[in-house]
């Protein structure tokens, strides 16, 4: 189903709209993000440097006993492909975990079971109590718990899920002394600068305080058990590296899909075109569009266009597909969103 929208001025090179915060176009209609984009040579050099550093790290880790890597696995296409890469290309002993937000597509859950078996990885599913999740999701759409900067790359609901998934992952990695914590962020989701890094305990305390603050406020302090505690930071022998391999390795969506389909992965038919695992995403996107005036995936898609991973036409088409009314209605019912809380029609705000 195509979403009806009024014309909106967009960057002539990527797809960022005039409604994106702080955007300005030059005479040719190009946005500042495209103008500042390093040339292809610079990007290639950065990626090669990160790949070399990652390969060196893998060589150091691989002889160790126990798990080498904890993979944050949503069951979507990118994290499934990343899981395959880590296990098969890099030969790592991987423990995968999924944060279940209560809205994972049944097909995605089936994909997780089938792929985990076919790939031969150990797997954990973490499902926090749903009344707490509901409280968080409702707060994410009804109050300004996130600063505007946090909403440029993801909706408030996605920010909440990402904070919880990262917190749960970091805690698991610290408890089990796993040296590598991997994510399946696409090249458009995570900047190259954050594709491989390790945070020291001092900075991590600051990051954790900032990440937990909105969630703690929304739940009267009930999210603490999902995040690392001071004892984890004090007793850790070493802090895990964070890696998003798709940021610096070759990435081609069609090839990635062929690879994971070979493992039994099937594309869910009930999710929106920007997600291959989450039913909450359609609703989260719709709310963000209404509240912020731009689509929460527009920055990611613009980055993919800028870096040559996706055509401008394909990116625009992904913004145009409207959410399924049935899926949105089911989400609203499960979250008990009152009928008096209404969204305006999307109009020209994408």
């Amino acid at each position, binding site marked *: 189903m195509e979403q009806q929208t009024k014309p909106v001025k967009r960057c002539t090179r990527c797809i960022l709209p005039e409604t994106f*915060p*702080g*955007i300005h176009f030059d005479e040719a209609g190009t946005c*500042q993000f495209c103008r500042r984009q390093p040339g292809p040579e610079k990007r290639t050099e950065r990626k090669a440097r990160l790949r070399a550093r990652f390969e060196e790290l893998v060589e150091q880790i691989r002889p160790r006993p126990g798990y080498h890597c904890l993979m944050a696995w949503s069951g979507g296409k990118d994290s499934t492909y990343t899981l395959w890469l880590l296990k098969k290309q890099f030969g790592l002993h991987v423990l995968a975990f999924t944060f279940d937000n209560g809205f994972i597509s049944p097909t995605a859950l089936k994909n997780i079971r089938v792929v985990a078996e076919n790939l031969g990885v150990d797997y954990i599913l973490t499902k926090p109590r749903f009344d707490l999740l509901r409280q968080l999701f409702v707060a994410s759409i009804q109050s300004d718990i*996130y*600063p505007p*900067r*946090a909403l440029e790359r993801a909706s408030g609901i996605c920010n909440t899920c990402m904070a919880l998934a990262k917190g749960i992952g970091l805690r698991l990695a610290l408890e089990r002394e796993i040296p590598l914590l991997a994510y399946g962020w696409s090249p458009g989701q*995570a*900047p*190259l*600068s*954050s594709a491989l*890094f*390790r*945070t*020291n305990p*001092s*900075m991590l305390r*600051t*990051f954790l305080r*900032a*990440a937990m603050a909105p969630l703690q406020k929304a739940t009267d302090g009930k999210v603490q058990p999902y995040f690392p505690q001071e004892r984890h930071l004090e007793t850790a022998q070493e802090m895990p590296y964070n890696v998003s391999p798709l940021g610096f390795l070759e990435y081609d969506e069609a090839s990635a899909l062929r690879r994971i389909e070979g493992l039994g992965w099937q594309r869910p038919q009930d999710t929106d075109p920007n997600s291959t695992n989450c039913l909450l995403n359609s609703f989260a996107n719709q709310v963000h569009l209404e509240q912020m005036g731009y689509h929460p995936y527009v920055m990611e898609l613009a980055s993919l266009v800028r870096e040559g991973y996706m055509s401008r036409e394909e990116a625009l088409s992904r913004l145009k597909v409207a959410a399924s009314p049935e899926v949105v209605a089911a989400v609203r019912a499960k979250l008990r969103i009152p009928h008096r809380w209404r969204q305006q029609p999307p109009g020209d705000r994408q």
Partner: protein
Amino acid sequence: MSVQTTSVEATIRRYILESFLFTDDESQLPDDASFLEEGIVDSTGVLELVMFIEETFDISVEDEEILPENFDSVTQLARYVHRKKESDPT
């Protein structure tokens, strides 16, 4: 304050204003404003800052140097850059 310090501060300030606050209004970024506590920069943004600092000032930032006391305000960051340049003038 030396001319060099001012120049480093100005470069950092311009980058933060352009890349994180999307404005050229300098009044929106006091020298000692905490990037993280005031939501100016998030954890991913700190890593973008690291890459910017390395490439702009030609220094290498070690993992253990990514601390709040080095990376949480314009003033702290400028001081850090100067310390690094002084310890490795090449």
